[in-house]
């Protein structure tokens, strides 16, 4: 039986126990972050570079969302919240490396964030993966082989260069040009599917 308006449950009840009552529930938050894995890992990878660190950061991010889902007001806020958290976790992961070589500073990360949002890089999920799949299949055989070596087997650029008998610089330049071509193809497909 209700006996009148409760003054302020969120503040009056135990801290952390009620504060999330209007927030994102854990299951929705977890589904959201897991379904957004390719985009988030890509974002982290742009900062940290290597795959293992990026995937470690994503694991940490999943654990953070499990614990802090009540801090996220709703599903619409999830993408921004996870990207900010991923940035923080990525920088934390790079702390040790910062002694060995420079890591991206906050100004550069702000610029990257702005490019991320302005450049239409927020497309995610099945349409993006479908487009990427089709664009990969359309690459010439030698390009597909290079993609397969790098991303099916996870072989380093140096080892690919050794295996193929090509200069390392050539391998790197070719890989980035393939990414450029794939991006152009993916965007074109996504535009067509939107139209």
């Amino acid at each position, binding site marked *: 039986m209700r006996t009148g308006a409760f003054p302020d449950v969120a503040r009056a009840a135990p801290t952390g*126990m009620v504060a999330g009552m209007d927030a994102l529930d854990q299951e929705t938050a977890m589904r959201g972050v897991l379904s957004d894995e390719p985009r988030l890992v890509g974002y982290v*990878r742009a900062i940290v570079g290597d795959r*293992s660190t990026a995937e470690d950061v994503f694991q940490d991010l999943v654990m953070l969302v499990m614990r802090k889902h009540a801090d996220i007001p709703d599903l619409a806020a999830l993408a921004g919240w996870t990207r900010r958290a991923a940035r923080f976790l990525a920088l934390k992961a790079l702390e040790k490396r910062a002694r060995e070589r420079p890591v991206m500073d906050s100004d550069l990360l702000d610029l990257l964030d702005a490019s991320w949002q302005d450049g239409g890089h927020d497309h995610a999920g099945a349409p993006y993966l479908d487009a990427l799949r089709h664009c990969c299949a359309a690459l010439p055989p030698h390009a597909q082989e290079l993609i397969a070596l790098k991303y*099916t087997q996870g072989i380093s650029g140096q080892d690919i260069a050794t295996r193929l008998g090509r200069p390392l610089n050539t391998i*790197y330049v070719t890989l980035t040009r393939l990414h450029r071509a794939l991006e152009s193809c993916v965007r074109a497909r996504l535009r067509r599917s939107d139209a």
Partner: protein
Amino acid sequence: MPEDDLERLIAAHLDDALDADEAARLHARLRADGDARHLLIAAARHAAALPRLALEPDARAAMPSPTPLPEAASARPRAPWRWPAAAAVFIATVGLGMLIRTTPPPLDLRVDGQAQIAHRAAESAGGPWLHAGDRITTSTGPATLSWTSEGTRLELAPASALTVEVASGAKRLRLERGALQAEVAHQPVDGGVTIVTPFGRVEVVGTRFAVQIQEHGSTVTVERGAVRLVAEAAGQPAVRLESGYAATLSGAAISHPVPQATAPPAGATAAGDPTAGSAQVVHVGPADWHDGAGWEGDLVDGAIRARLQSDSPVTRIILPLRRPDGYLRLARDLRCTLRLHVDQATTCALLLVCDRADGGDWLGNLQGERRLVAGDQELVLSADDLRPVAGSGLTMPPGSRIIGIAVMTWGPAADLRLHDVELRR
């Protein structure tokens, strides 16, 4: 910077192969050139997504599959302090609608359900098939590990983590947190299943049992067959636990086995009556008072006095309910009795803080309210008087654990003295 130098640096960055000078050059270019930033972002996104596509059968068919390099040539230098860096690591969501599908390697240990898999083993092919070294974590849903050749199954509860230490023969798995239930088929002489917990290990020949890691020990219940309990501390005698009995590994010792009906909850809530095997009565009064550690209020004249909140016109007491004999669980016959004194007419509320039946994270709060007159009171609330806190939209299933209570007054905030509270079912 020439364009091909930028292209080289971006690929080297994503290959973790930049030296300090190259990193500085790349950062300078990225600061100055928006197109360079877009190129890096696109390459990083593809680099994150392509390994997933590469594991799909359709993509494998579409892409030539290169001959594997010798292991020495393909091994990448990894930082030894990071466990996922021991080998290629990726995270997969396994279950219906999963994106990753693989052709099963010649293995018979696989995981199904909603789990994250960290494939640490060098020979891992990814997907649901597991090797020694792989780690499985669950969050909101359970996962099942099964040895398909022998019918042994482990049901890993939500919010659990487990590492496969030995995947075949004398199998060994390390339960790091959470709970599991096991259905172990009869094992050959060189077989067996061992569940290692922070407080000791459970050795199994063929049985059905459950393990739940709690704060101070691992509770084991045996439904069928028998298990052998070995405490973490050296020199402690092993204990054989028969069906229908439960015991707790606490690191230094093993508790005396007791019939399951009176045992702590362990993982017993995962099947059958979710309220079975838990506390029947919780009584909290001034004698139980702790200063700090989540408790809120003041011990005054033999009663717990509510504190006036600084940011709202409410007085409040908070009582955590963690107990050595298990939590009280929500049930239809729950009855809450509070003996208290208020100095003026007020509205008083009892708030039950609940988490999931399996011990997962906070689930929501139930609240019951009464208008009280001034003076000594006995406030009785039944389960029917309790409602989810406004706005939460949550319903609390029977079996949810009651992990804490709050007693509050407002309209106006009264001087509340709590003599005791009893929750009984």
